[in-house]
């Protein structure tokens, strides 16, 4: 049954990919694509629910299903096996559940697109690989899914590849991920060499045993985390995610917010057996996570593209998840994955609805006053905004508050410093999200007259999904994910003496969210010159932030340009043209020159040849006479 969960979306990919694209001559119409493209993921979701019920009936003993033996090399057998436990259940529910509703949303969003069938084929392909990633028992299967989601992400970012910028963004995502994958592969090599297996449950068990294995847990942990930084857009490999917004908005919601980018979090949580023995690696994760969260939040404050704000907010929230992982609160990180999937999918789809209503406009400076025109989108967007800002009792409040608490008090590396940075980030999160809400939906309209005339609420397939996700964003916090996972991913101990801080910190985090709301309301709810004055007084900082800390430019100058220079001067001009081509051309020229000289002997005159023979004979005779 686990195999079926994975294979159903693949079937959808094959059907849609062959029948509904130019490949198969567009044999079938949009109704077929809709039914197949949405039906199979929903079916997968139903099967996941059933698997969860089976799991509960079996007393939460992990279900293992071996689908196929891939290779038998020496004594090691590589199997495509699926593994279903509590963690898998949570992730698979999110992937298929949120995935399915985003598929349904896409029906409305993409209905006028020529490549409707291709879009659904890619989405189904993504779902297939993501399920492979989540359900795989071995790191090898996980890696196949890992690469596969990268591929489908590339295909979907560059979905409208007629615009070269989109194709370039896809390429950037793919290449940046490849850097992380190098670390991931090295980690796998180290693990396989040490244990002779890549099955994750066995690896965790090997680290949890009485005698510690003869391999540095920190080394493995850091190598795997490098892979996670690529997929989950952490510093320093975060640069691809904002550019990935070039894809269609449902893709941004599904792949670049709700599911794929959380694969890194899943990986670390899944391998928590290793990280429990790697305090150094955990510290690196916590620091990178909180730095990413802070850095991305500062950039999000000044972005003007509605999707870019959400993209940086995603990076920031992923940073929060890694912070939780770094302080040992694996279950809490997964909890944030879940709530984040709800509210960020809702936000992205809401943004999609706005973009849809405005005919493709993404610049918040040209929006405003949309609340009355598209009320359903506004209400759902507002709920999701409040959820991500951490206003109780919405979903984001619970998960974020737990992250802040463990960042403060965990015995596995929590510290007030981590809490301070994370709390500042939470404040900024509330501020930039309410700023976005205000600029988009409230205040006076800044749209051109023509655009304003065409504004319309989205069709039911889109608004229905928005309402559903907003509902989940509102109540998702009451799903006790950490408690559900505790049997598998125990929560870290907290410092005894810090226990009495729990309530004050709770109050502080609520206050921070409200403070962010108030600041945004004060700045953007009033007259425009308040913002303008602020911007002018911090002109340098504003420029610095708008340019995203010039990180793209830094990479371009430090890595890109030297690489181009070396390729051009050393490899192309010196190596290829001079050395390789030069050698060949030199040999050819030598052959031609010597042929020209020797060709003069071939006069065609037999007499001359006879003379040569004579000279040769005489020479040979003389030589033999002298030497015998």
């Amino acid at each position, binding site marked *: 049954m686990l195999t079926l969960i994975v294979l159903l979306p693949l079937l959808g990919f094959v059907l849609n990919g062959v029948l509904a694209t130019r490949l198969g001559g567009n044999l079938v119409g949009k109704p077929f694509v809709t039914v197949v493209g949405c039906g199979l993921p929903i079916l997968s979701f139903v099967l996941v629910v059933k698997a969860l019920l089976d799991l509960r009936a079996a007393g939460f003993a992990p279900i293992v299903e071996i689908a196929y033996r891939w290779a038998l090399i020496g004594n090691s057998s590589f199997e495509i096996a699926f593994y279903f436990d509590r963690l898998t259940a949570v992730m698979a529910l999110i992937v298929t559940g949120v995935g399915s509703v985003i598929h349904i949303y896409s029906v409305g969003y993409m209905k006028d697109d020529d490549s409707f069938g291709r879009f659904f084929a890619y989405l189904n392909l993504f779902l297939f690989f993501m399920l492979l990633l989540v359900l795989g028992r071995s790191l090898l299967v996980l890696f196949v899914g890992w690469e596969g989601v990268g591929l489908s992400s590339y295909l979907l970012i560059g979905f409208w590849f007629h615009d070269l910028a989109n194709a370039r963004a896809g390429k950037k995502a793919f290449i940046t991920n490849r850097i992380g994958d190098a670390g991931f592969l090295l980690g796998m090599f180290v693990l396989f060499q040490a244990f002779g297996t890549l099955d994750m449950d066995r690896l965790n068990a090997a680290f949890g045993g009485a005698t510690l294995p003869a391999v540095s847990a920190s080394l493995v942990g850091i190598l795997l985390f490098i892979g996670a930084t690529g997929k989950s857009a952490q510093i320093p490999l975060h640069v691809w995610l904002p550019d990935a917004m070039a894809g269609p908005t449902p893709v941004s919601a599904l792949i670049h917010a709700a599911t794929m980018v959380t694969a890194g979090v899943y990986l670390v949580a899944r391998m928590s057996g290793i990280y429990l023995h790697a305090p150094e690696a955990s510290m690196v994760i916590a620091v990178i996570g909180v730095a990413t969260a802070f850095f991305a939040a500062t950039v999000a404050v000044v972005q003007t593209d509605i999707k870019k704000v959400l993209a940086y907010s995603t990076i920031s929230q992923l940073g929060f998840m890694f912070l939780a992982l770094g302080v040992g609160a694996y279950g809490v990180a997964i909890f944030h994955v879940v709530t984040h999937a709800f509210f960020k999918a809702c936000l992205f789809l809401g943004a999609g609805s706005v973009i849809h209503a405005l005919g493709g406009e993404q610049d918040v400076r040209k929006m405003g006053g949309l609340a009355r025109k598209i009320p359903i989108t506004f209400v759902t967007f507002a709920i999701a905004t409040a959820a991500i800002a951490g206003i109780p009792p919405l979903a984001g409040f619970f998960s974020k508050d737990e992250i802040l608490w463990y960042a403060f008090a965990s015995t596995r590396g929590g510290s007030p410093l981590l809490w301070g940075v994370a709390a500042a980030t939470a404040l900024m999160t509330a501020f930039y999200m309410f700023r976005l809400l205000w600029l988009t939906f409230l205040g006076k309209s800044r749209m051109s007259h023509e655009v304003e005339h065409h504004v319309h609420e989205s069709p039911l397939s889109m608004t229905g999904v928005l309402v559903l996700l907003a509902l989940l964003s509102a109540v998702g916090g009451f799903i006790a994910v950490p408690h559900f996972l505790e049997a598998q991913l125990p929560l870290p101990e907290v410092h005894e003496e810090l226990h009495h801080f729990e309530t004050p910190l709770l109050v502080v985090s609520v206050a921070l969210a409200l403070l962010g709301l108030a600041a945004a309301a004060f700045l953007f709810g009033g007259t425009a010159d308040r913002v303008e004055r602020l911007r002018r007084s911090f002109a340098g900082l504003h420029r610095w932030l708008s340019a995203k800390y010039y990180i793209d430019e830094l990479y371009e100058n430090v890595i890109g340009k030297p690489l181009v220079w070396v390729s051009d001067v050393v490899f192309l001009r010196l190596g290829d043209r001079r050395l390789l081509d030069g050698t060949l051309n030199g040999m050819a020229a030598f052959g031609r020159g010597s042929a020209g000289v020797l060709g003069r002997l071939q006069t065609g005159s*037999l007499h001359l040849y006879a003379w040569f023979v004579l000279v040769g004979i005489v020479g040979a005779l003389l030589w033999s006479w002298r030497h015998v």
Partner: protein
Amino acid sequence: MDRTQLLIGVAVALFSLGLVGVIVRRNVLVMLMCMELMLNGVNLSLVTFAQQTATTVGAVLVFLIFVVATVEIALAIPIVLLLVRDKRTLDLGAYNDLKG
């Protein structure tokens, strides 16, 4: 000057005559004949030495050369015939198609 010396002298004379002929004459048929002359000079020297050393190896080699010479001339004459048919001359100067 005994007989052996005389015969060797004749053999050398035959060979040199043939060689000079091949080198200086322009008529293809004459050149072929000169080549035969050289072969015969060699044959004569072989026979002479065979007589002198009272062995049969040299004489056997002579028969081999006869066979080779026959085959050679049997191939060469048709080639010359074809060439003549093509060029309408026996002059070697016209046969320079293989000039490099």
